[in-house]
């Protein structure tokens, strides 16, 4: 186990270092959450008049939602890094060394979670600065961040598995788009649950994105039930383990095709 942790850490360092060299990428990474936050909260300002939001201020409602949205987008797209590594022969080079396949997967999952954590912190900081309230205080903020990081980690497992199965950028882009938008609309990220049609509410129960939204919104709004927060975070943790397992399996499947 220490070996697995060490190897994952070395691989995570590599990704972090390479990404930080991409100045434009870093700039967009920091600015993008701000764009989400401002555009959506402005667009939907008056929607709370419909009722069911648990607050009059859409910003309070949307802040945990946008942390989740940003996080699961980051996770869904993270497999692109694996496609690039496959193309450039980097994965193959590592496969002929003692590095564990699971270390390659864990480092990617951890990278997606770290990225979501950084972006989530920026979102929360800006949200608070422009007048949002988090009812659960500091612990509530941390819970929102953890929900986002688990969402990113969980979806990155799927994304890396798909990368290893398809191995093509164009297919990855199509798959990420195909998955991301429907899952967003089948959750309560943008609007209050009671406003969703019945069938959508029913489907959203099985949507991990919505688990994240529930875990993140509960501590953001008044009347927090911490048991609900803990349950959904637990569910997300299970989801993350499952998808990381899927990605590790995809690695073995990929190697069988070599």
């Amino acid at each position: 186990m220490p070996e697995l942790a060490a190897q994952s850490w070395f691989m995570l360092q590599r990704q972090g270092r390479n990404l930080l060299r991409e100045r434009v990428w870093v700039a967009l990474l920091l600015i993008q959450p701000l764009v989400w936050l401002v555009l959506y909260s402005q667009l939907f300002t008056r929607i709370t008049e419909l009722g069911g939001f648990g607050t009059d201020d859409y910003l309070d409602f949307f802040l945990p939602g946008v942390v989740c949205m940003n996080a699961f987008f980051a996770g869904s797209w993270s497999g692109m890094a694996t496609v690039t590594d496959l193309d450039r022969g980097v994965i193959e080079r590592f496969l002929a060394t003692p590095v564990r396949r699971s270390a390659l997967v864990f480092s990617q999952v951890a990278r997606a979670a770290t990225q979501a954590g950084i972006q989530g912190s920026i979102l929360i900081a800006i949200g608070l600065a422009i007048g949002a309230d988090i009812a659960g205080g500091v612990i509530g903020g941390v819970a929102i961040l953890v929900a986002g990081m688990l969402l990113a980690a969980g979806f990155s497992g799927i994304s890396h598995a798909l990368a290893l199965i398809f191995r093509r950028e164009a297919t990855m882009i199509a798959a990420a788009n195909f998955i991301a938008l429907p899952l967003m609309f089948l959750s309560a990220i943008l609007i209050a649950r009671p406003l969703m049609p019945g069938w959508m509410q029913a489907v959203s129960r099985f949507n991990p994105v919505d688990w994240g939204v529930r875990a993140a919104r509960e501590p953001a709004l008044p009347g927090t039930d911490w048991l609900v927060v803990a349950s959904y975070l637990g569910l997300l943790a299970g989801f993350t383990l499952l998808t990381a397992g899927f990605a590790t399996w995809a690695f073995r499947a990929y190697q069988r095709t070599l």
Partner: protein
Amino acid sequence: MEYPALDSLAVDAIVAEGLEKRYGDVQALAGVSFRVRDGEFFGLLGPNGAGKSTTTRVLVTLTRPDAGRAAVAGHDVVREPERVRRSIGYVAQASGVDREATGRENLTLQGRVHGLRGRALRERVDELLSVFGLSAAADRVVRGYSGGMKRRLDVALGLVHRPQVLFLDEPTTGLDPEARTVMWDELERLAKVERLTILLTTHYLEEADRLTDRLAIVSRGRVVVEGTAEELKRDLRGDAVSVELADGRGEAAHAAVTALGSVLEAAVDGRILRARVVNGGAAVPGILAALEAAGVPVESVTLARPSLDDVYLHHTGHDFRSDDEAGLRA
């Protein structure tokens, strides 16, 4: 195939026995067998598509064979892949360097993956950077490296952990002639200095001739012959005649020449007719007369001792360069 008896103390670094591998309709390996002794610089020579890379990928545990068995550094590649991976360095045909990282970062990560840490790692990285002439570029991102530098870094990556066996899959393909010569010098020195078994695959006859102690010629998924380059050439009796034809009538030329009793075998590649004859001096007038009679004009004639081209022709019945181009198109 019979293997020479080995010194009882010497353990073979690589053993491949009857390796088979199929991809869809393509039988990439149809029973590859050979042995590489400890400390030997061994070449797998063959045209494109002969199965050299697939053989290497089986030996470095990237691919499982459909049939046959193989051991590297005393470990079975299918049953003990972990142990094999700790004992080998692998330089793939396509570069595997991380282009967004510096040369030093690439080497450091590779060393860490192999369990090197701290000062030992830093010193080994510095040493390799200097040996491969990369010290000045060590802290630059690889994207800006020349093809030759990138390839030398690839080889250095395979050596970080001082492996027992190094696999070099076409290390000079795609390099310009100057970078190729630099790489050959590096590899020659490497073979001398480090006590290392090297398996090199190549489709350059000259490269196999110059670098390897012993080689196996691979064609269509099989080893057709194994030995030192000298032995293989010596085993061919006679001389090699190379005729440059003035026009492209290769088939007519081939038919005219093979009808002669003095010609042991012949093959045509474009405008070059290669033939092996018992006695060059005596056979050339006959060849020229036969070509003239067939109405095939001749540009020039050269006579030489048999080369590895002739060895390939003799053992496969094909021209090496034609097979190489056919393999590239396939």
